[in-house]
């Protein structure tokens, strides 16, 4: 039921945003949707690199809107606990693409909140180790799993420094058309690739964040909201020491 509602809202956004862009701060556009949102017919290219800036200052304590939106968008809420499973064990086995993390600074005691997900590394360790090439990086910077050739070895999960990936531990009875999913494969955040390929330019998490903590867009376009914001505010990559050049950046951690 609520899925339909959400769908309706997206349709609404599509049409209304064609006329106006949402402004979050002077000079910073939240997102713009092109009027001619249509399925993509040309291959993606590296002219675009999708990325994100997350402002930990804006991310509110106790809020999990982005997580709920991701679950809904990608059908993760349809993954049911198998009959007879131990609930506490299942909690550690069920898939999660985005999660809320709360940090405390060891010296100052300052608390920060932030969402963590696949960082869409430019040099992704998960892709390097995958034996079959199922883990791959699309030309536009999105790292994802081709589940048709994933053998479920979980080596990518061993290699990911952000613990961004989930293995599907059980049969999934119901799935969405645009997010196929099955037992025995690995998956992770794909920047809502089905939205992007259909001409939209937001992710579910960004759209859901009432606090505007997430800015998503094209890192290669100097005028994009995310590039502008990155230029303006200091930001970091998590585990920058690994030199993975992540597509997801954070400020005010």
């Amino acid at each position: 039921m609520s899925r339909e509602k959400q769908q309706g809202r997206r349709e609404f956004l599509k049409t209304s945003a064609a006329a106006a862009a949402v402004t979050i701060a002077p000079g910073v556009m939240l997102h713009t949707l092109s009027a001619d949102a249509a399925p993509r017919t040309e291959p993606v290219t590296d002219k675009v690199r999708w990325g994100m800036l997350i402002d930990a200052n804006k991310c509110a304590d106790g809020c999990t809107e982005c997580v709920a939106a991701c679950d809904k968008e990608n059908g993760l809420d349809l993954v049911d606990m198998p009959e007879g499973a131990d609930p506490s064990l299942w909690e550690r086995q069920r898939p999660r693409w985005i999660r809320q993390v709360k940090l405390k600074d060891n010296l100052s005691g300052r608390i920060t909140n932030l969402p963590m997900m696949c960082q869409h590394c430019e040099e992704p360790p998960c892709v390097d180790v995958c034996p079959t090439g199922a883990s791959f990086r699309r030309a536009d910077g999105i790292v994802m799993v081709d589940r048709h050739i994933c053998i479920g070895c979980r080596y990518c999960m061993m290699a990911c420094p952000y613990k961004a990936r989930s293995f599907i531990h059980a049969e999934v009875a119901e799935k969405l058309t645009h997010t196929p999913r099955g037992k025995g494969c690995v998956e992770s955040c794909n920047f809502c690739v089905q939205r992007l390929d259909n001409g939209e330019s937001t992710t579910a998490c960004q759209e859901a964040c009432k606090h505007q903590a997430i800015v998503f867009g094209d890192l290669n376009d100097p005028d994009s909201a995310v590039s502008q914001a990155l230029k303006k505010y200091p930001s970091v990559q998590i585990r920058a020491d690994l030199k993975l050049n992540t597509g997801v950046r954070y400020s005010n951690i």
Partner: protein
Amino acid sequence: MKKTHFSEWGIESPRYWGMLAVLGAIVAIAGGAVFYMEHNGHWVTGMTNQVVWGIPHVFAIFLIVAASGALNVASIGTAFDKKIYKPLGRLSALLAITLLAGGLAVLVLDLGQPGRLLIAMTHYNFKSIFAWNIYLYMGFMGIVAVYIWFMMDHRMKPYYKPVGVLAFLWRLILTTGTGSIFAFIVARQGYDAAILAPMFVIMSFAYGLAVYILVLMFAFKVDGRDIGYAIQRRLKNLLGVFAAAVFYFTLVYHLTNLYGTENHAYEAFILRDGGIYTLLFWAGWVFVGCLLPIGIVYHPSLGKTRGGLIAAATAVILGGFATMYVIVIGGQAFPMAMFPGKTIVASGFFDGVNGQPMLYSPTLAEFLLGIGGVALVLLLTFIGIRMLRFLPNSLSDEVADPHYTKS
């Protein structure tokens, strides 16, 4: 030294078939466990999105590591021309193949999609050390098979040595490759160490030899064949040296880790407050796996006995499993350091809240799969020595020792 004669394993049929039946039953139970896990999905195991490799990988990696080590005895005979080891070569090569087969079977049967093995064979990512390992394993089996053939076939005598050398080099690369599976994982503190790959080579020497010793002693004992003191002493000394080398590498590994500040937390976890992992490290890896066998082997009286040798080899194997558990599971249980200088106080995905390690409690099915792999190794080995001439008729001092003089 007399010429060595080889013959098939001659134990009475009922006994032979009885052994096969028992091993076959264990393999069948493991098959049931695999069906159960694959049918339901991995939720019936203790593996989670935090600890993604579990007991099956502990067994599989132990067997694969031991496989390349088992070939050592043959290599010493061929590549290094030590005459006394030559009669031991055939069984050594056979074990190398069967151990590898057992380990790979466990590894493959734990995949989320074992039915897609064909994909793994046709889609390669040449950057992946895992994919390279698939080649290395296949090549290893092929080369060792040829090696066995050349050892057995007199017409092939002239080529026997080069193949032996090739097999030796291949096994070195292979174990380095297995070690690199971990060493390439920069994400996790415990694995990000260049020394892991050579450490795996040394471990393979020890584990492979220990398995070899036990199988050899058992096969000879039940078949009434003789092993003289000369052979026993050499195998025993070799085992002692390998166990000591593992101990040395363990020291270096942890000392270099302690040297780098960023690894202190991981070291504290393994060495001091990791609970089961600390226990397995000290009691299993260090004591049972290294100190105990060294003690037995160099004990003035114990070291000379058959029982002492068997005990030492058993200890090395048990210690080896503990070692693999600490490396494979312990390395994952330790929370990844994503935010230096900060503590994770809450997380929606078990990120090691307040530094807590990840939980892992293996289920029975996982153990059954691993044990099935071991049973498969023995099953294949026993069939092999029964069908073909792998075992020398005798390894008594009179036959084996080049310096033997009738007193």
